[in-house]
C-alpha cells in the first residue's frame, strides 16, 4: 500500500501557545484511520494543520507533494474534504444549496446534479428536506448533511472532526455505517478524529493515539482496541 498523506514532525501554534509537538503519522490510500485522544490532546489541531487553518511547521505531503504554504481553499481543491467540528453547516441556506456548495470548486455541472441524487440515496432524509433551511435540521441530520457536503467534492481524502459529537448513540451507529460504506465503495480515504474511542476503533482499520500534542501509540485498530493498558491509560473505558 502506498501512503497518501504523510505528516512528519508537525508542530502547531495558537499565537504563543504550542499545541502540537512533533507529530508524525501517515495514511495509506484507501484506509480508514482514527485519531484518538482526550480533550485538548491536539486532535482538532492536527486536522486544522493539514488544511493550513492554524500556524504550523513540519512537513505535510499529499500524494508526495508538500501542502505547506498552500491556502486552505487550494488544499481543499486537491481533493481533501474537511468536516469541521460543529459541522460548519450553512444554516441560512437550503439543504440543496449546502450540497451545491460542497461541489462549488467543480466544473462538471452534469455530474454534480447526479452526485446530488446519489447523496439523496445515501441519506434519504436530506431528499425529504432538500428545500428546507439547513439550520432547521436536527443535529443528526446536520451531520449527515455535513458528510454529504464533503462528499460532493468527490474527495480522495476526507477529514472528520468528531462526527459523533452531540448525537444520539443510534444516530452515531448509522453515521459510522455510512462512513464505512463510503470508504469501501467510493474508495475515499478517511481520517476520523473521535472521543468515542470504542466506536471509532470498531470502524477503523488503523489507529493513532495522541496525548498532549504527541503520538503515543499507533497500530491496527483491533490491536489497540484489545490492548488493556492502552485502553485504561489513554482511552478511558
Amino acid at each position, binding site marked *: 500500500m502506498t501512503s497518501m498523506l504523510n505528516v512528519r514532525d508537525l508542530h502547531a501554534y495558537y499565537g504563543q501557545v504550542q499545541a502540537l509537538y512533533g507529530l508524525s503519522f501517515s495514511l495509506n490510500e484507501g484506509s480508514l484511520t482514527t485519531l484518538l485522544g482526550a480533550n485538548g490532546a491536539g486532535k482538532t489541531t492536527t486536522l486544522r494543520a493539514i488544511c493550513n*487553518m492554524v500556524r504550523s511547521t513540519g512537513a505535510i505531503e499529499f500524494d508526495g507533494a508538500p501542502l505547506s504554504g498552500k491556502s*486552505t481553499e487550494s488544499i*481543499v481543491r486537491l481533493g481533501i474534504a474537511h468536516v469541521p467540528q460543529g459541522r460548519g453547516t*450553512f444554516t*441560512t441556506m437550503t439543504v440543496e444549496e449546502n450540497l451545491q456548495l460542497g461541489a462549488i470548486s467543480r466544473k462538471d455541472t452534469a455530474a454534480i446534479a447526479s452526485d446530488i441524487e446519489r447523496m439523496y440515496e445515501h441519506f434519504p432524509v436530506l431528499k425529504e428536506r432538500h428545500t428546507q433551511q439547513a439550520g432547521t435540521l436536527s443535529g443528526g441530520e446536520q451531520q449527515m448533511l455535513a458528510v454529504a457536503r464533503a462528499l460532493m467534492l468527490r474527495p480522495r481524502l476526507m477529514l472528520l472532526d468528531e462526527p459523533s459529537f452531540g448525537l444520539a448513540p443510534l444516530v452515531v451507529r448509522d453515521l459510522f455505517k455510512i462512513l464505512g460504506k463510503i470508504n469501501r465503495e467510493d474508495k475515499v480515504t478517511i481520517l476520523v478524529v473521535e472521543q468515542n474511542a470504542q466506536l471509532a476503533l470498531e470502524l477503523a482499520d488503523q489507529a493513532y493515539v495522541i496525548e498532549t500534542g504527541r503520538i503515543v501509540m499507533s497500530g491496527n485498530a483491533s490491536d489497540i482496541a484489545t490492548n488493556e493498558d492502552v485502553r485504561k491509560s489513554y482511552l478511558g473505558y
Partner: protein
Amino acid sequence: MELFINQVLAGISTGAIYACMALAVVMIYQAIDHLNFAQGEMAMFSTFIAWQLMQWGVPYWWTFLLTLAISFAGGILIERLLFKPLAKAPVLTNVAGFIALFAIINSVAGLTWDFTIKEFPSPFGSSAFLGSRLISTHQAGMIGVTLLMLVGLYLFFQFTRIGLAMRAAAALPESARLVGINTSWMIALGWGMAAAIGAVAGILIAPVVFLEPNMMGGVLVYGFAAAVLGGLTSPLGAVIGGFLMGVVENLAGTYIPEVGNELKLPIALALIIVVLVFKPAGLFGRAIIKRV
C-alpha cells in the same frame, strides 16, 4: 389626496436611491463587518467619471455601462490596496481607513473637477410621466432602473454558482474556505459590486441634487438609516428600508410643518437611534448572539 400620492411616489423614487446606497453598505458590511463611510464618496466619484465621459462625447447609456465597469474595477482595487491589508486589524484602524478613503476621494474629486455645481443630464427627461402630474419621467426612470438592477442582483445571488459562493463566504467564511471558495476574492467582488451599485445611485440622483463633490453626503446618511432600519444583515431589508425611508422623509417634510425641508435629515438620524434602541437587528435582520 393628489398631494399625498404625489409625495409617496416622489418618496419612492428617492427611496430607490437610498435603497441602492443601503444595499451597497450592507454588501460590504456582510463581507467584512464594517460600515463603509466612503460609500457615498465612491458613488460621487463614479458620477463624476460618468460626467467626464459624457463631456468627451460618449452617449448616455454607453457612459452608464462604462461607469459601472470602471466603478466595479475601482471597488476591487480599493479593497485589494487598502482593506485587504487591514482585514485582521482592529475596528478603529478600519474606521480610520474608511475616513481616509472618504477624505481622499472627496479631495481628489474637488481637485480634478472643482467644487462648482454641475448639471447632470437625465435620459428620461423631466416631463410628466404618462401624462400624469403625479410623477415625472425621471422619477419613474429612477424607480425603473433601480428595480431592474435589484431583480438582476436577486437572480445573480439566487441562481448563479458565483452568487452562491459569495453568499457562503459572507455567511461563514471558514466553512466557505473548506469547500474550496477563495473568500478573499469574494470580498473583493463584493466591493466591486457595491461600488457599481453606488455608481447607479449617483448617476440617477445627480440630475436631482446636481453634481458636486459633496452631493452624496445627505444621501449616504439616509442610506445608513435605511440599512439600520431594514437590518444590516439583510440585503432585502436594506432595500425595503430604503424605500420606506424615502416615503417617510417626504411625508414628514410635507405634512409636519415644523420639519419642512430643513429638518428632513435629522429625521434619518433620529430613526437610526430609535431603531438601534428598540430593535437593534432592524426590521428584517437577524439578531446576532455572540458568545463572550
